[in-house]
């Protein structure tokens, strides 16, 4: 088993800054943007991305979290998972531009579950997807709007995203 590092601390910071600019560009400003992180590391990334966008646009960006556990289609294939917190910022998501934030995009099934979860909460004007690492191998017709880095990988490999707040270090590694 060998692991190689594909993104380091400075790379992750640069990627988030670029994504922040892209989000503002595609939305033509900060109006109506709501960031929703998907637990666990998507929430951490959303918490970082929010202030970056706020800093550029000079306006507060609401950041929340969206648990998808209860909407997954693979619950019976794994030991029981405990749901995580869903926190929708004040002001809700109706008519807003919701940007889903997650660490790795793989099969696309988590995002499918997230879209269902959003539907039970409200009706955003637009839903976008921001991803730190796109590793390919999609099983559903889902694609990201903002990507930190495309990392072609074999489906047998493991992509690990580690973030300082949870793991003490900022890095993305591939184990094969």
């Amino acid at each position, binding site marked *: 088993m060998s692991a190689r590092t594909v993104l380091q601390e400075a790379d992750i910071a640069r990627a988030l800054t670029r994504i922040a600019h892209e989000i503002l560009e595609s939305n033509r400003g900060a109006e109506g943007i709501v960031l929703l992180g998907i637990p666990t590391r998507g929430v951490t990334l959303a918490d970082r991305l929010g202030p970056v966008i706020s800093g550029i646009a000079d306006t507060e960006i609401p950041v929340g979290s969206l*648990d998808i556990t*209860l*909407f997954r289609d693979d*619950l*019976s*294939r*794994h*030991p*029981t*998972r*405990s*749901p*995580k*917190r*869903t926190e929708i910022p004040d002001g809700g998501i109706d008519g807003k531009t919701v940007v889903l934030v997650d660490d790795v995009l793989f099969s696309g099934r988590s995002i499918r579950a997230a879209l*269902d979860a959003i*539907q*039970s*909460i*409200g009706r955003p004007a637009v839903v976008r997807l921001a991803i730190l690492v796109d590793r390919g191998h999609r099983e559903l017709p889902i694609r990201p709007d903002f990507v930190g880095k495309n990392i072609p990988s074999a489906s047998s490999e493991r992509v690990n995203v580690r973030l300082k707040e949870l793991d003490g270090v900022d890095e993305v590694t591939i184990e094969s």
Partner: protein
Amino acid sequence: MRHLLDTRTLDRDTALQILDVAEDMADTQSRQVKKLPTLLGKTVVNLFFEDSTRTRISFEAAAKRLSADVINFAAKGSSVSKGESLKDTAQTLQAMGADAVVVRHSASGAPRTLATSGWISAGVVNAGDGTHEHPTQALLDAFTIRKRSFGPDSRGHDLSGLHVVIVGDVLHSRVARSNVWLLSTLGAEVTLVTPPTLIPQNVSQWPARVMYDLDAALSAGPDAVMMLRIQAERMHAAYFPTEREYSRLWGLDAVRAAGLPEGSIVMHPGPMNRGLEISSEAADSPRSTVLEQVTNGVSVRMAVLYLLLAGERDDERREVK
């Protein structure tokens, strides 16, 4: 979790997990769309050999909010009244493909028999058996106490340092038994107040203090007072002289309710006998959690069904609790 049969053998971590998942379920119940797709394709059978309205509809609501299919089976008007045995009934449900069976039975231990006999592979939830236990009621009571004490920060908290007084017919009450075990597992101090004729024989082995004088117990300033229903259907002997005497000595009247400390709550599992064990003033006061208990009951039962049914089923694993 394979079955939920009692709270006596429920460990602290599992109990807290159920309460924490119930918090998540409660959060989903304030959304525009309350229905979750989580248990789509699972079948939950409500097998009720004893009358119950609120527990059955609470389980039914919980299962439906999680998108499970619900089959209600009431013993009245069914083949049970024609003399079918528990075993044959159970095997019929098995053949229909039940994933979980919620059972209420007048015989203590019937749910355990169902769970351990090997007749069915479904998960079994005890919804009240005889005078034994009613675990989901205790869980929703613990959830209600925790919610009132810690508010939005309830997750992860146990009940240590809290004092709960349970008043009434402890002898016949499965609610009291389940609460004594669960609340003490979660660290609460439990005091039972009951007429001497309605004390179970083995109460000295319970993790609870027993008192006969309600006013003395209330003067200690409990955090929660739980009034038990006087169960007329189980009163086959003269346990107390008259209802009026019971009400005067062990009922929560307006004066006693008003004397409770600020922030302490009044609980009742329902259905209430107003004017007997609880006065209307106490039942309708802001301290009363009677309706919150009903709402929380759905969340807690959603959590139990989720933990029972959502994960991978390993049929090799035979947890004998």
